[in-house]
């Protein structure tokens, strides 16, 4: 039996909505008591020095290069990055090479994850075979093998009939389906959001309306099929009314937003900086503010890092040719602190979106400090300032838009099931 007592902490409890000073007692990897009157004999103590102790982050949509692109990221390096970033569960994407579209590939992913990752992994599986948008994958087998949701990543199932059937079948299994909302025709060839910036830089742009069109189509099919649905990323204010209507009419729909769309805008691309090329493209400052407001109000449920490792070769290209995506596991927490420091979100509110909501939506343990929950915890100093140096990242790929940025908020320790995974053991 192992006992740990976290003392002198500021407990961030998203479920209770509180940020109170207190202590936490953990036995065999499970939270068993808040503010115990005495520390039991033999318990290891952790002095939190008044810093914040919160449930570990549950990050939905992490891309790991296994199988297929291990030179960009492996389960091992992603595990280190996650631990250093306070992420205790990575929900991994299926857009690997080959994609996770059979139970056999899923088994490989789970085995590799178990062998080398410091943090928990919950894999997603592809929605259609080969992510080609033609035939649904074996939802039943894949679910039984541990797939927590079904997603074709950034590919849109273009044929509404194929998607309708997949949603109907998923409904029968009560499986969660992810959508990437972007009208493929309108967004074809685009590298940035259309507008003054795109025009000045001479880059092909797409209107944010393409996102709303994709969302409206998917929501119509959800209304028809009644399936459980999550939008991986909303980035534009023009999408919010549709989301609001879907909620009001009782559809089982949730939505996410990436940390980059909450903290950066289109002008950050500057002189063709390809580390700022993400999918969907960065939006206007008005859109960014709308996203922050939607997270605050709860209309957007989940914040994710959309961790997408790309090697130098994929990024050192003219902007239009460069690959999309940014790493985010290690910068998610400090970047999210900008929302606390500059945009007025409370820590408890923020942790609903980073931890509680994603865990609940995917039926995963964690996301709360309630007694009986696993001791997946992150200890952080929300004020500690630093300048990010991308070469210090644990990810194999260093493509972060925050290189050289002044940030505030550092992870001091991460525990998974009561086991300390950060700072790393030597």
């Amino acid at each position, binding site marked *: 039996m192992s006992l740990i007592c976290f003392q002198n902490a500021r407990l961030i409890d998203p479920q209770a909505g509180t940020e109170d000073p207190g202590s936490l007692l953990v036995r065999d990897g499970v939270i068993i008591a808040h503010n115990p009157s005495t520390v039991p004999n033999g318990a290891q103590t952790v002095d939190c020095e008044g810093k914040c102790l919160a449930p570990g982050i549950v990050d939905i949509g992490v891309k790991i290069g296994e199988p297929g692109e291990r030179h960009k990221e492996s389960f091992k390096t992603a595990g280190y990055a996650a631990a250093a970033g306070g992420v205790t569960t990575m929900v991994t994407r299926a857009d690997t090479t080959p994609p996770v579209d059979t139970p056999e590939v899923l088994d490989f992913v789970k085995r590799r994850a178990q062998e080398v990752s410091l943090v928990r992994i919950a894999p997603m599986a592809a929605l259609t075979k080969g992510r080609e948008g033609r035939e649904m994958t074996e939802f039943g087998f894949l679910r039984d093998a541990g797939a927590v949701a079904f997603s074709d990543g950034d590919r849109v199932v273009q044929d509404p009939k194929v998607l309708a059937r997949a949603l109907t079948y998923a409904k029968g299994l009560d499986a969660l389906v992810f959508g990437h909302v972007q009208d493929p025709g309108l967004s074809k*060839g685009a590298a940035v959001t*259309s*507008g*003054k*910036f*795109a*025009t*000045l*830089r*001479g*880059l092909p*742009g797409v*209107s944010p309306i393409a996102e709303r069109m994709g969302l409206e189509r998917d929501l119509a099919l959800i209304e028809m099929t009644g399936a459980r649905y999550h939008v991986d990323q909303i980035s534009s204010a023009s999408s919010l009314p549709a989301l609001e209507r879907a909620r009001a009419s009782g559809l089982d729909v949730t939505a996410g937003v990436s940390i980059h769309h909450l903290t950066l805008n289109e002008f950050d691309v500057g*002189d*063709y900086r390809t580390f700022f090329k993400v999918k969907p493209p960065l939006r206007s400052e008005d859109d960014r503010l709308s996203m922050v407001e939607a997270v605050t109000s709860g209309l957007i449920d989940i914040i994710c890092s959309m961790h997408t490792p790309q090697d130098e*070769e994929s990024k*050192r*290209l*003219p*902007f*239009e*040719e460069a690959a999309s995506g940014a790493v985010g596991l290690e910068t998610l927490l400090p970047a999210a602190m900008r929302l606390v420091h500059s945009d007025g979100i409370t820590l408890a509110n923020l942790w609903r979106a980073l931890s509680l909501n994603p865990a609940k939506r995917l039926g995963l343990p964690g996301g709360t400090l309630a007694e009986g929950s696993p001791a997946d915890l992150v200890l952080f100093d929300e004020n500690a300032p630093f300048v990010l140096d991308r070469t210090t990242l644990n990810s194999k790929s260093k493509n972060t838009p925050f290189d050289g940025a002044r940030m505030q908020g550092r992870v001091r320790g991460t525990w998974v099931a009561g086991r300390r995974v950060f700072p790393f053991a030597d």
Partner: protein
Amino acid sequence: MTFRANHLLGIETLGPDEIVTLLDLAESYVDLNRAGNKHAEVLGGMTQVNMFFEASTRTQASFEIAGKRLGADVMNMAMAASSIKKGETLIDTAMTLNAMHPDLLVVRHPHSGAVDLLSQKVNCAVLNAGDGRHEHPTQALLDALTIRRSKGRLHRLNIAICGDIAHSRVARSNILLLGKLENRVRLVGPTTLMPSGVADLGVEVYDDMRDGLAGCDVVMMLRLQKERMDGGFIPSEREYYHRYGLDTEKLAHAKEDAIVMHPGPMNRGVEIDGLLADDINRSVIQDQVEMGVAVRMAAMDLLAQNLRASREAA
């Protein structure tokens, strides 16, 4: 004389004083180019490499003549046919070339920002000869010199840029340059060929030619860039000519002494009437070509001076 830039990547980063410096120097090269002996030695001992990743006849020839008249050793690399086809990246190509110690690199590339990227990796002066839909600074400078010589000034003029604005790097560089020197710029064309957010650039936007040309001092036509379009921007070329092609009837709405410009190559009968293009009383299209050589000589001269100064300092 002020010219601070180490590269000529675009008009956006140039100050009005730098633009005027360059145009003033170009005037002297116009004279040189009209003289019997067209040789100067300001680029003597320097190597100029023209890398055109996109086909070009007139711009490449203009840069080549400009370099040769200033005494540089000029080499043309036809990039469309070379190592790019073998999969070499732009940066590797730049590094390879850099190892051969060129002094002036003239680059055209089909992607916006590519010349900027390349300039970060080499130790010589880089001149943007057109990148994607982004900028074409020497074109804007030669247009400015043409206007200044024809109108006697380069401020407080009404200038209409007409046609395919969306796909045009010439339009972007001209909007920036003419704006910096305090002219009124109008953009005229079908709304499908107007880039998004263009009204925020300090210009007036028209979709009717006659309204747009009313009272203009300069009418600048653009080529309809069929090769950059993925279809469906205009219903047909004949409708485009009917509504936006420049002919004497539409030109009559501009000022009586308005000049007609075109960066070339022209699609006669699509964006401009052939006879009007050849009308020496209205069209300054041949002057533009002449000014092109002078402006490029001035640009390379100034960049070479700054390059020499920075090498001596180092």
